[in-house]
């Protein structure tokens, strides 16, 4: 590929990181050009027009606004080009792929807790298979953190009170730094870990080694009964509550006439602050669970409801 011809070029560990590096190279090249021109002119003028140097200083030719207009226009065009390049790539990072794998990340002072759908959990580490898009669904238990993998040129803040997600994909197996990039208190610089990218087979082996007692969905199901959710949402309950089977990913009509897609964020909000978005045709009777469930429990409940997606209501 032609990028390999760029001096000092290293192939990135993912297609996206390679694109960002190319953008960086472009920015660097443009800046170097401007700087070189500027420093050359500064040096030239300083030497040529130093006081005492006998040289023609007669009135300049040409109108000054010609110069003004040209360098203003030149800057504007160059900036616009860089904007479009950067914005285009940025929107790329937010595209999602159909076959992605969901992994939950809970940030708290001062650790990263990762939950795989199969129930495997790990601290300050994230094991993923290569060549497979992974959707990280992230929540913070306390303050704002930021999930940063320099090798992938990606980061995203984890703001408390909402799910935030980020898709990553790694092509080269290896260990990569994971940093918290948003200042979060005393041990901020200790809130680091590693992303371990493995070949598919190794990853499968790693998953089975972890031998969790139950999957996230099963644990969520247990919580679902423990918190008494099943009393109303369960089959055959007396209270009329919306059925959750087959809900995930569908359009939900709300009482105020709008519709939303029942995604992770919606489920999260519906559990914590149920009455902010009431499903049409139901009474607003569900108590809010804000402050009653931790982010860890919450994500299990969400995974459980997700796991009901294939069931018939």
């Amino acid at each position, binding site marked *: 590929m032609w990028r390999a011809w760029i001096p000092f070029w290293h192939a990135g560990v993912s297609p996206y990181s390679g694109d*960002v590096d190319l*953008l*960086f190279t472009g920015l660097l090249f*443009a*800046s170097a050009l*401007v*700087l070189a021109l*500027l*420093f050359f*002119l*500064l040096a030239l*003028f*300083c030497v040529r*027009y*130093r*006081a005492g140097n006998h040289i023609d*200083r007669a009135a300049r030719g040409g109108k*000054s606004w010609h*110069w*003004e207009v040209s*360098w203003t226009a030149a*800057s*504007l065009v160059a*900036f*616009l080009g*860089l*904007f479009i*390049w*950067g*914005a*285009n*790539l*940025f929107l*790329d*990072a937010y595209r999602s792929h159909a076959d992605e794998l969901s992994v939950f990340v809970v940030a708290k002072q001062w650790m990263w807790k990762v939950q795989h759908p199969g129930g495997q959990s790990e601290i300050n580490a994230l094991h993923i298979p290569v060549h497979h898009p992974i959707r990280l669904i992230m929540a913070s238990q*306390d*303050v*704002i953190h*930021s999930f*940063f993998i*320099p*090798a992938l*040129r990606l*980061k995203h803040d984890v*703001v*408390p*009170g*909402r799910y*935030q997600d980020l898709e990553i994909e790694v092509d080269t197996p290896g260990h990569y*730094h994971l*940093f*918290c*990039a948003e*200042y979060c*208190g005393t*041990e*901020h*610089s*200790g809130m680091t870990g590693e992303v371990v990218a493995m070949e598919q087979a190794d990853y499968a082996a790693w998953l089975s080694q972890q031998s969790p007692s139950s999957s996230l969905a099963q644990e969520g199901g247990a919580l679902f009964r423990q918190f008494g959710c099943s009393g109303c949402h369960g089959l055959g309950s007396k209270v009329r509550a919306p059925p959750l089977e087959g809900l995930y990913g569908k359009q939900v009509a709300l009482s105020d006439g709008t519709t939303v897609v029942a995604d992770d964020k919606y489920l999260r909000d519906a559990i914590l602050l149920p009455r902010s978005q009431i499903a049409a045709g139901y009474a607003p009777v569900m108590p809010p669970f804000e*402050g009653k469930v931790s982010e860890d429990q919450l994500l299990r409940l969400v995974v459980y409801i997700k796991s009901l997606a294939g069931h018939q209501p």
Partner: protein
Amino acid sequence: MNEDSYLNAGYTLRSWFFTSDHKRIAILYFASLIFFFFIGGAAATAIRIELATPQADLVSSDMYNRLFTMHGIIMVWFFLIPSVPNTLGNFIVPLMIGARDLAFPRLNLLSWYLFMLGGSVTLFAIAAGGVDTGWTFYAPFSTLYSNSYVMAAVIGIFIAGFSSILTGLNFIVTIHRLRAPGLTWYRLPLFIWSLYATSVILVLATPILAITLILIAIERCFGVGIFDPKIGGDPLLFQHLFWFYSHPAVYIMILPGMGVVNELISCFSRKEVFGYKFVAWASLAIAALGFLVWGHHMFVSGQSLLASLVFSFMSFIVAVPSAIKVFNWTATLHKGSIRFDAPMLYALAFIGLFTIGGLTGLFLACLAYDVHATDTYFVVAHFHYIMVGGMVTAYFGGLHYWWPKITGRLYSEGWARAAAILIFFGFNLTFFPQFILGAEGMPRRYHVYPPEFQVWNVLSSGGASILAVAYLLPLFYLGYSLFFGARAPANPWDAPGLEWQTSSPPPEFNFAVQPVVTRAPYQYSEAFKAEPQNA
């Protein structure tokens, strides 16, 4: 020293602390700022020593967090924001526009007292145990989690904010109302234009900081949070409010520096500034556009994609007037007759360093690259190139340039040039490695870091020690000149500005007769020599 100099108008403490003379108030500010600069500098020194090794060895994590918070708060609110406006601006603005004082002299004094009160409360917060939120005070960490002296710091900054507002108000009114007869807008020196633009930001952005700090204080005091996610508040709202102030505040910190550089470049190349009107309006364009870009601090925070796109676009646009200025300064040198006195060395250093800072700003405005670089040392290096490489360098340049006018004494040119060169090299050695650290992904505000980053950190710390020495030098030779320097003539640089038409140091009410202005600024050419401005 001439008998009627403002320095001879009284020798009692009362004549200083209850003065309404803008020149004396400038001196009060100047003394206070030196003090704050060295406190902030001491914190920076400790940080750089700690970061020479990857592990924690000098201070604990809590202490480290307090150090960088203190460095940020002191340097931003108690040094950079008031630096040029409140010292050089206070002193020079009325002189430059041919006025006898600022429009509201007692308000000016009140502004200094507010500044000192705010500074004292902030110093109390630091002495009592420090603040560990970073200068950005991000909620909910600052409101619900930090157990340091956030309240005191917030109150201190809140008070200092009113000092900024009063100064800005005073400048705006003064520049509108007190210009000498004949001094039309296009005859104003560009320093005035840039301070005018700065004042507009001071007046319109600082109140948002005030209200944001009130909200933080209330959330901390009563535990009820307008930003608290537990009751549905949004921490990002805090960031929007904070950066609505703090991004324009960056322009508060650089526009006055640009203003100073205009004066220096034109004086030492003996030429009028190229493209005067473009440079003048570029200042106002920066002040206005600077309000439209704050969201570029939040590209990875989870704000909407559309908002990110708009803010990125505006960030590129705001770079255009800065580029215009740089090109115009360079063009000013063309066919000049350039002298390399110390102030000119600072001005040339400013152009180089500001351009590097500005160009790396484009990297950060560029969405996809910002995702990688934000909250890393790349950002740290970028804004230090603007604030230290730009503003502090310009401040030193302006200080040397107007030193004879302010004190009536001449400093040692050799020492001054040596210091300027040392600052330039020390600065680059300190901060250029930080670009590399950031590009490689070292997050900012990290107390311990992976060992592979050490080599660049050691270089940076080494540069910082040179920079520390270089910043101490002026203290000595300028201090020496106060007592033993040669007497300065009224116009040592042979410059046409009104401030040079009165004696050095100026008399109490600046001008014996009201000056009348008959021509554009920066008329350095021989043709105007015979005909003084004040005719």
